[in-house]
């Protein structure tokens, strides 16, 4: 934190405690407000339609596709798509959290803030993590009910942890894409393609062993891949494989780091190149 | 036959908020407006933001249904016979939206010519004429995204004129346009009027209205506060003199004190960069210099001038009178019970 912090709520000479509280406030209050301001799908019909019903129908599409082609069983598609269902909220959310500032013309005002960037941007990602988790849980439960798939009760805590790790990793991924929004105009184009690529490369819908090696390698460094594997193992009664969840968390941490670096880089670059107000 | 005939037009907006427990709020934007515009006349609608100008225009050009009251354009009812009205009117609004940016001016005009029913064999000639008229000839093949605001505005006008409308609605056409472009625009409008087109113009620029309009209606709070030729409106403040004082940091309390001076009819402050212009309307011939300056005690004061009232002063006087009366002067049964703001009016942004 800089020593001079004008107009913050922490007073004139903030101690470590007040600084922590102030940063927490930025994370929680700032994050919640920016979610409401910048996320396009917060109205109840949009939320239900785009974030709950949409992924569920997509899941059904792949389940029936799989049944017709006899490539893999229902469980494969169901778990894979339940994990991927968080991606709509997380990838687009992370993108909107940064890129919509440009659309509303408020980006300049945000970047003028003297506050530390890490809590500012990560506070924005947290609502999407929770949102993604809710969607995954909903999709999984609804699909299990519809298709009559049973998941062992003892697998549930582990499954919850896997879904949380997936949502967190995917939000970090979204934030990193959103950072591109500080530099490029049509960043939603990138997130749109990215979220369809996740369908292909994370192995949610195509068994990864049938993909060429380079696609598998790409999948390894994308969010959701390891979570999808771990979730399938758990639901099949295979127990929690700690490595899967750790791999997912590590991937997520990598994207979080990338997001911070990109945000700092583009923020500095935008002052040099005057790309802030370019619509 | 009259070009435009509005009788007691009213318009209420209903907005809903909340999803699970929707709440309806009603806002009265226009509260009974009556006026007539003769064929070939250039009629101005002036008023502050949110006064109901755009709403009035949109009721007349068939985009909005009146909540009550009637309006006719060239004898056709705007509510029940919109297509007949649309064939004979043009609508141009200010700002730089409303064009297909990634297409050329020519493609924009071709498309709208088709929509506005210009005969195919006339299209080429008509588009050429209009490009000449608005000074875009030679640049018609460029994409609109590269156009300046003034050029876009001229393209808007060309678009509005494609089908040779008898009545043209111009809603704040000069907004955000630089002075030279605004002058060209005024010339174009004056030429149109000279050619026999009836024009209904809304604007914020008093000089523009003074120069162009045959008659002016001042709207505030959804009703017409004054209607007449520019000279007649000015005569409302003719018996007054204007004292304009350069000041630095005069607040509402100073204006209040000035208004308390006997012989003063009104006082307003305008920000002009770092300084202010305090404009005091006084009785004509009364020398109130000393008293007014005394009321500004403690404020740094620059130049002081006395001048004749302009249309702008008349306008300010009319609108301030309306403000002083609002909102209690609204007659009628629909006295906005659930009005959201004090003046009870909003204006729909174009």
């Amino acid at each position: 934190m800089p020593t001079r912090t004008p107009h913050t709520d922490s007073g004139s000479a903030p101690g470590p405690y007040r600084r922590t509280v102030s940063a927490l406030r930025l994370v929680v209050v700032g994050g919640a407000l920016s979610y409401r301001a910048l996320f396009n799908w917060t109205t109840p019909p949009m939320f239900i339609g785009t974030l709950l019903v949409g992924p569920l129908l997509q899941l059904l599409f792949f389940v029936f596709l799989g049944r017709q082609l006899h490539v893999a069983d229902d469980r494969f598609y169901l778990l894979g798509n339940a994990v991927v269902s968080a991606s709509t909220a997380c990838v687009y959310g992370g993108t909107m959290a940064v890129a919509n500032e440009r659309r509303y013309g408020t980006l300049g005002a945000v970047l003028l803030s003297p506050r530390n960037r890490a809590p500012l941007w990560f506070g924005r990602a947290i609502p999407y993590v929770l949102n993604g988790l809710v969607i995954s849980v909903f999709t999984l439960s609804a699909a299990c009910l519809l298709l009559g798939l049973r998941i062992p009760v003892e697998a549930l805590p582990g499954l919850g942890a896997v879904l949380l790790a997936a949502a967190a990793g995917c939000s970090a991924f979204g934030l990193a894409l959103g950072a591109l929004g500080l530099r490029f105009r049509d960043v939603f184009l990138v997130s749109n393609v990215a979220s369809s690529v996740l369908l292909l490369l994370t192995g949610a819908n195509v068994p990864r062993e049938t993909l060429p090696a380079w696609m598998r390698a790409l999948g390894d460094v994308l969010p959701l891949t390891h979570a999808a594997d771990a979730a399938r193992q758990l639901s099949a009664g295979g127990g929690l494989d700690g490595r899967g969840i750790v791999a997912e968390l590590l991937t997520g941490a990598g994207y979080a780091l990338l997001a911070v670096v990109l945000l700092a880089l583009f923020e500095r670059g935008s002052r040099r190149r005057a790309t802030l107000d370019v619509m | 036959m009259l070009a435009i005939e509005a009788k007691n037009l009213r318009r209420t907006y209903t907005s809903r908020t909340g999803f699970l427990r929707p709440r309806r709020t009603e806002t009265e934007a226009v509260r009974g407006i009556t006026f007539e515009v003769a064929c070939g006349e250039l009629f101005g609608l002036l008023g502050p933001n949110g006064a109901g100008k755009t709403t009035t225009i949109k009721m007349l050009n068939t985009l909005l249904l009146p909540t009550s009251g009637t309006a006719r354009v060239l004898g056709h009812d705007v509510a029940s016979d919109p297509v007949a009205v649309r064939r004979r009117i043009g609508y141009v609004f200010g700002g730089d939206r409303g064009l297909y940016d990634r297409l050329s001016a020519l493609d924009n005009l071709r498309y709208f010519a088709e929509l506005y029913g210009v005969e195919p064999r006339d299209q080429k000639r008509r588009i050429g004429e209009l490009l000449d008229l608005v000074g875009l000839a030679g640049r018609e093949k460029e994409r609109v995204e590269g156009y300046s605001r003034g050029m876009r505005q001229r393209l808007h006008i060309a678009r509005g004129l494609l089908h040779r409308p008898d009545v043209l609605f111009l809603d704040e056409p000069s907004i955000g346009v630089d002075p030279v472009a605004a002058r060209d625009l005024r010339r174009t409008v004056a030429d149109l009027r000279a050619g026999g087109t009836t024009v209904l113009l809304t604007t914020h620029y008093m000089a523009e209205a003074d120069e162009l309009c045959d008659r002016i209606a001042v709207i505030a709070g959804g009703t017409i506060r004054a209607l007449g030729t520019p000279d007649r409106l000015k005569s409302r403040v003719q018996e007054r003199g204007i004292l304009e004082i350069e000041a630095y940091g005069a607040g509402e309390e100073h204006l209040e004190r000035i208004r308390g001076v006997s012989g003063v009819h009104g006082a307003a402050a305008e920000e002009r960069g770092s300084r202010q212009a305090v404009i005091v309307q006084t009785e004509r011939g009364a020398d109130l210099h000393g008293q007014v300056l005394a009321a500004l005690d403690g404020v740094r004061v620059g130049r002081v001038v006395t001048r004749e009232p302009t249309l702008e002063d008349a306008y300010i006087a009319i609108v301030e009178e309306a403000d002083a009366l609002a909102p209690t002067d609204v007659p009628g049964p629909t006295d906005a019970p659930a009005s959201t703001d004090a003046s009870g009016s909003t204006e729909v942004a174009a």
Partner: protein
Amino acid sequence: MTLVRAVRLIGVGVRTHVSYMSRSPLEITFAVLVPLVYATLAVYLFRAADDPDRLLTAAVGAGLMGIWSSVLFGSGGAVQNQRWLGTLETLVASPTPLSLVLLPITLATAVIGTYAMGATVLWGAVLFDVPLDFAHPLLFLAAVPVCVLSLGMMGLLLAATFVLLRNANALANPLDAPVWLLSGMLVPVTVLPDWTRPVSWALPTTWGSRAVHAATSGGAGAGEVLVPMGVALGLGALYALLAVLVLGRVERRARAAATLALA
């Protein structure tokens, strides 16, 4: 308005909107890149299923999915897009009936969808060596435009419904996959529960993709292409007619509720 003028208006309108959309990198990405991802996915799935004979079906199917997505998002958002551009009021204030103003826009979104078809077939041929052995190449070239036309007319109903019903645009995102599934774009509808069959029959997309698939894969006579083509056109026209009825209401209501300019 005479028929000649109407046809001319539609022609000029489609040309205008196709060139407008084609100049947006965003639209082109939606239309091309995403279907390519789906084509890749489909090809790998069909390969994994040991179904290499049907790789062309996979590529064509992904193309059909792209056409539908383009119509769904483009037509569903047609009115909203014009509102954002600020052109909606000018369009409504024109003496042309609203349905004739909107039909060229929805047809244009279907035409943009053919980029997807071209891209996925080419992608399959170049990257996966999918042989382009169409059973009826000429009929295929006829079936695709007919499919586009019927989907464009269906798009008009989407456009109308999405304006008439508040919040209906929330349906745009979730309607993507079910129509792929119900119309048998990638796999035949036979895997679906029986009760879905009437829904499939009611969709012009079903008949359009049946015609396109029949023209693609062997073993089908010309009749199996032409009949579904006819049904697709008929259903499309029916949807368009319904849309005209809905739009009459839409326009009247928009004038009453002042929703033309406001988002």
